[in-house]
């Protein structure tokens, strides 16, 4: 019986049962003896200074252990660099309790530590703070004149700024047969994974820290804690085995980590700090943006001129950037282009990556403009994309490593029934309801960075794989187990993937849709190295039947190494390990992106979304009645978890298009809808038929697995497809997200 590859099989999540039965423990679930609980006090003003913070009454409460403020915090690292984590943009990172300055509304200004959470929360509520308020600005629109170029730094290297202009945009645009221009505005969105942010810091007997943290990067947090608190990295262990959704919110160490570590070190006690739902609105968020597009095309539909400019919010202390405007020319090879991306610093917390950062912002403007162009030219929107189809990325002057977007268009359209569409707006109806069909393209970069993985063959003949990477709910544990099992030809139950622990080999933060390509490639490299090692040892065994056999002549299956031409001859892994006095055989390997090969290709995942909406003609109410997303993302390791990723992205797309926004009252400089009753995301009743197609895409360049990340690609095409469907249904082009039904009255 030869090994049937696990890659490509719809394996159910290995930890699924633990999660749905409540056995899985999250950062705030860890209990240790005599644990103290912290509760954060947040600033009630937007900008100014703390004149006085009176903690006496709070401290007098029996059971309150300490109240930390800027006045009594310990002396900490001096330099900004020491606070800069792996995902920090250019600037000076926010330092909790640094001094009496208030930089934004909701800034943490004190931590109450008490014997119970309830007591800490109550004590926090009676701390009285006197402020000196200063003028502030939180409104992007009215501060447009303050827009400036982003500062360069490591972040802008990873998230490149727009390309320089090419050709002569102004002339090409004015010469174009069809010209469209449009303005787009997006609201701020806040991270609201179901798991709230929490850190449990266990103060060990030897003074070392074991930290259970909600994060997307255990090592990122370990380094941050070490740098900020002057601790030896070996004395800081960060564990994050289960993460209840993160979506970018855990890319940077959040302030509850800082505060809980500070309290634990000062009090020499174990401390937990959990943020509540309102406090989820007091750190990183998707920034509000304003965009303008000007697209021109010739009479045949060829796009000749592309201009895309964006203004985005950032904080006063860091230049958070996203890739918003770089996408249109990657998809549509116009020769005349002009792109701009500027920041407006405002009195807010620094924005933070949120699922498909930048891409979901820019692609809405690009794909809505393409739809508008299709109407201006009287060309079917799908046909217009095909007219402008390219396998070559003109922005980087190189081909795509693979690009089956055409198949996404064709298979998606076929399954959706796009050909039934009457292009005339308001032409399709069901009773009182107008029906609209819309489509849009999605693109997201397929990145790889570096990671290390350790692989061990145990005395029982079982494979253990270790990586510091987290699993933020995407199915990382399951797919890494699949990849590893295939390397050694083992059943899944004989493979253990251990992860989410900074003691394990290096993995970067989990984001950018690069985890499978990065850590998966390292798993593959470690598996390959372990195979070599096992074969070598097997050959050295007394009377080994594998003597003189090369790797080509053997096959790894059934828990051992068998001869290809005579499968009855097999040396079992456990017997190999037994010859080493049952000491596990181990290898640690790193996988790097092959930059020499990769630099000649643009690597990206693509998608096409097709959406049907129903809009009540008189009342404006909108339902996304069905949607199909066709995805080209190379080799799909696990079609089941991959489908879930795409479905989740599609739901998020519906949310972004129709529901999600953080409302700011600029008179107070604060967010007003800080809870899940008022911050709307879709409910089940808002989600109807969703379908996913993975088109076949072979890619021998992108990485060892031929696989592209899929964390973001399910989202990017949905908002424009929905907006385009609404236009088709109603004849109204709403370029402001989210679209509220009353805009269609």
């Amino acid at each position, binding site marked *: 019986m030869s090994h049937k590859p696990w890659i490509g099989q719809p394996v159910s999540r290995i930890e699924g049962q633990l999660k749905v039965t409540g056995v899985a423990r999250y950062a705030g679930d860890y209990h240790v003896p005599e644990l103290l609980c912290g509760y954060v006090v947040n600033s009630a003003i937007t900008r100014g200074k703390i004149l006085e913070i009176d903690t006496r009454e709070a401290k007098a409460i029996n059971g309150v252990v300490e109240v930390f403020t800027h006045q009594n915090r310990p002396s900490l690292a001096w330099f900004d660099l020491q606070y800069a984590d792996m995902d920090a943009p250019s600037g000076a990172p926010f330092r909790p309790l640094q001094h009496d300055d208030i930089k934004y509304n909701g800034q943490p200004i004190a931590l109450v530590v008490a014997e119970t959470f309830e007591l800490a929360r109550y004590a926090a509520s009676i701390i009285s703070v006197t402020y000196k308020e200063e003028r502030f600005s939180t409104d992007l629109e009215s501060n447009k004149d303050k827009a400036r170029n982003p500062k360069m730094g490591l972040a802008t290297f990873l998230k490149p700024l727009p390309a320089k202009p090419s050709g002569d945009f102004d002339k090409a645009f004015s010469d174009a047969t069809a010209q469209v221009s449009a303005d787009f505005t997006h609201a701020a969105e806040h991270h609201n994974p179901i798991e709230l942010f929490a850190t449990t810091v266990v103060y060990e007997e030897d003074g070392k820290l074991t930290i259970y943290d909600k994060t997307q990067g255990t090592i990122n947090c370990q380094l941050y804690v070490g740098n900020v608190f002057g601790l030896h990295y070996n004395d800081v262990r960060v564990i994050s085995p289960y993460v209840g959704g993160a979506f970018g919110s855990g890319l940077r160490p959040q302030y509850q980590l800082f505060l809980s570590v500070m309290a634990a070190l000062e009090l020499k006690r174990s401390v937990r700090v959990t943020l509540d739902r309102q406090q989820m609105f007091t750190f990183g968020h998707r920034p509000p943006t304003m965009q303008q597009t000007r697209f021109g095309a010739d009479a045949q539909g060829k796009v000749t001129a592309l201009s895309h400019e964006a203004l985005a919010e950032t904080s006063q202390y860091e230049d958070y950037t996203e890739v918003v405007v770089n996408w249109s020319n990657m998809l549509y090879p116009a020769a005349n282009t002009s792109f701009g991306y500027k920041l407006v610093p405002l009195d807010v917390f620094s924005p933070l990556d949120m699922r498909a950062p930048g891409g979901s912002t820019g692609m809405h403007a690009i794909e809505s403009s393409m739809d508008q162009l299709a109407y201006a030219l009287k060309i079917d929107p799908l046909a217009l994309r095909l007219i402008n189809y390219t396998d070559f990325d003109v922005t980087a002057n190189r081909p795509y490593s693979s690009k089956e977007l055409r198949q996404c268009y064709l298979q998606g359209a076929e399954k959706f029934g796009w050909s039934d569409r009457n292009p005339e707006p308001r032409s399709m109806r069901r009773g009182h309801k107008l029906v609209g069909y819309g489509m849009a393209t999605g693109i997201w970069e397929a990145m790889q960075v570096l990671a290390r993985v350790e692989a061990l063959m145990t005395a029982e003949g079982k494979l253990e794989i270790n990586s510091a990477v987290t699993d933020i709910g995407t199915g990382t544990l399951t797919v890494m187990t699949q990849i590893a099992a295939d390397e050694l030809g083992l059943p899944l139950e004989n493979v253990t993937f251990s992860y989410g622990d900074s003691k394990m080999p290096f993995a970067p933060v989990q984001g950018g849709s690069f985890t499978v390509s990065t850590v998966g490639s390292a798993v593959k490299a470690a598996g390959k190295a372990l195979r070599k090692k096992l074969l070598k040892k097997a050959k050295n065994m007394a009377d080994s039947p594998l003597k003189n056999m090369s790797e080509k002549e053997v096959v790894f299956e059934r828990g051992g190494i068998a001869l290809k031409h005579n499968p009855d001859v097999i040396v079992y892994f456990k017997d190999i390990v037994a010859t080493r006095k049952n000491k596990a055989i181990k290898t640690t390997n790193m996988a790097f992106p092959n930059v020499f090969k990769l630099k000649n290709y643009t690597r990206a995942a693509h998608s096409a979304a097709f959406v049907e909406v129903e809009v009540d003609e008189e009342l404006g109410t909108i339902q996304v009645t069905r949607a199909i997303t066709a995805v080209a993302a190379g080799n799909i390791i696990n079609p089941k978890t991959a489908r879930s990723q795409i479905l989740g992205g599609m739901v998020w797309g519906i949310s972004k298009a129709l529901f999600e926004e953080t409302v700011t009252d600029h008179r107070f400089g604060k967010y*007003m809808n800080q809870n899940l009753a008022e911050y709307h995301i879709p409910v089940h009743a808002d989600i109807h038929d969703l379908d996913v197609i993975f088109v076949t895409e072979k890619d021998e360049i992108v990485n060892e697995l031929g696989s592209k990340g899929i964390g973001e690609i399910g989202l990017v095409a949905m908002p424009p497809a929905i907006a385009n469907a609404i236009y088709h249904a109603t004849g109204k082009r709403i370029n402001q997200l989210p679209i509220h039904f009353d805009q269609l009255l």
Partner: protein
Amino acid sequence: MNNFNYTRAKNIEDAVLSVSQNSDAGFVAGGTNMIDLLKYNLIHVTLLVDVNHITGHQAVTENADGGVRLGAFATNAETAYHPLIEARYPLLSRAILAGASAQIRNMATNGGNLLQRTRCYYFYDPHTPCNKRKPGSGCSAVGGYNRIMSILGTSEDCIAVFPSDMCVALATLDAVVTMQGVDRTRSLPFAEFHRLPGNTPERDNNLQPGEIITSIDLPANGFEKNYSYLKLRDRSSYAFALVSVATGLDLKEGLINEARIALGGVAHKPWRVKGAEDFLAGKPPTPGNFATAAEIIIAGAIGYGHNNFKIELAKRAIVRNCLMALNPESQRPGAHPSL
């Protein structure tokens, strides 16, 4: 949330006595709004009297006059799914089921539904002025983000909306609210129970301190043949109404014998205008007549910027819901628009 004492009342007299003797005491039934208010630090009780275990007010029963009595401590879910309500007051059932979420309806009680506080953002944010939370501090919603706020019956002191769906149906049905205090039991017609904000927006209703709602009585006519509840909101469930409409029609020989129309999501209380109902009496149930009635109901509406759309939306919703009431089969779960 501060520490407080908690006690389970054995009977109504006991509960009323405990709360009336302590100005910092409060009742808790389902707790679906009370616990929010405690956690948001908006109210500080020293004693919470749990009334969930009091027997005698948890049932839905028929009255001698042909009406039905809703126990104040029956849950919203028990009421909505009760055979008497489903058969005879389907409008009430529909309205309840359009509100909140299944989990909340399983906890929330009928009495508590009448007493829920507004969902105005500024009311829940102790760092902004709000006359309802802190009389005299000002109204942040006027000139602020007021998409969800009132267009009718507002005052310069408050433009908050009363969020209940159930109460819109109860207003339509001319329910009667019965309350018990230490010395007396009294009843109020539904229309007189809730208040407009005026210059005392801190008072949502006419319940006196120490009083507790014990029952809500429904008159015999449940408009079970021609009724509809329509709720327009920013998502399909677990969102408060931007505009909702309850309609009950009594048709005779093709003409409207009696019409009842109440709006939710537009005022500090369910909004009914007798003039509009009188206008419809004796007329054929046509879109034109419903549109005229809608104009009468919405007369005097004022938009505050973000909520201007509610004026036109409410008119259209009234017409649609009246048409849906002619064909109750057209109603969909969740009180979505149909036809």
